């Protein structure tokens, strides 16, 4: 009798698991089919957004349409995105384990790689930052390349001096702060939020992107290692 009840319970649990799996599979499939059908029957191409971008590109201060959208037409998106990055870094740092890795050493190959690669990484990042005005490139690409250098720096167990450690919070926040300062300055001068004056637009965008590149590199490095870099 006891055995029978147990068996019943097991088969009941198994049935519930089956029903759950089936329901999840069915609803995901339904969503996929609905989305697929919507794409299949999309109305003929509307070129309103691309033509709006093309028409206003000469007022944006840059020549690359993607950069114009990111930092001018939809600048608030990018502002909030840097805010999200900073929040993520704060979250990761506050969850970081308190482990002491001072005894860690890196293989010599990584240190040689670091010495050889770091100058090129910095040059490529600066080039990507600059070229974003005219062609694919910009703060995020440059920041990601620079972050690769940061990861290399951390994995080669280089000890940062106290000035570098002190400037980590500045590096984390300089992108968001510069962006906010420009946004507030445009409002104080009687324009809309992030509406750059045309003769300054290119320079302002480059300044924001340069600050954002530093922040993105520092934040991505911290997200990678999941704790504060070691001080020496």
């Amino acid at each position, binding site marked *: 009798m006891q055995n029978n009840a147990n068996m019943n319970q097991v088969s009941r649990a198994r049935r519930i698991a089956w029903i759950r799996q089936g329901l*999840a599979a069915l609803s995901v499939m339904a969503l996929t089919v609905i989305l697929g059908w919507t794409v299949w029957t999309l109305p003929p191409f509307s070129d309103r957004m*691309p033509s709006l971008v093309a028409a206003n590109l000469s007022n944006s201060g840059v020549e690359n349409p*993607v950069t114009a959208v*990111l930092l001018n037409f939809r600048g608030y998106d990018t502002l909030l995105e840097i805010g999200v*990055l900073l929040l993520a*870094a704060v*979250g990761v740092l506050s969850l970081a384990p308190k482990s002491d890795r001072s005894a860690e050493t890196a293989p010599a190959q990584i240190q040689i790689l670091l010495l050889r690669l770091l100058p090129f990484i910095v040059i490529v990042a600066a080039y990507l930052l600059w070229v974003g005005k005219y062609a694919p490139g910009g703060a*995020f690409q440059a920041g990601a390349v620079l972050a690769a250098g940061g990861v290399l720096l951390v994995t080669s167990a280089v000890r940062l001096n106290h000035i570098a450690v002190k400037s980590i919070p500045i590096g984390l926040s300089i992108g968001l702060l510069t962006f906010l300062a420009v946004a507030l300055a445009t409002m104080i001068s009687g324009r809309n939020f992030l509406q750059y004056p045309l003769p300054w637009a290119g320079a302002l965008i480059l300044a924001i992107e340069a600050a954002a590149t530093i922040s993105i590199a520092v934040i991505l490095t911290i*997200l*990678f290692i999941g704790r504060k870099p070691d001080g020496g």
Partner: protein
Amino acid sequence: MNSFLLYALVGIVLLGMGLYRLVMDPHLVKKILALNISGAGVFLFLVAVADRIPGAAPDPVPHAMVLTGIVVGVSATAVALSLACRIKENNGTTELSKNEPE
């Protein structure tokens, strides 16, 4: 079937596969992976949508959205992995229990 449709539909299928695993898999790291796969599906879809007319210049607006999305995805993944590490530290496992309260 042109290439736009192919890429867009593959993106939607990836989204579906990721969502299913996200809901059904009890392992936290696999959930995070699944979330990333569905995110990749959305990015693929947006990039495909940006280039619907063969020959014409692609629409820069979805491209900018994907750039923003990649960064937000990386941040979310990093925070989720830190949380998973913390859960592993506290509970000794990254699996959610199968008989959670109904």
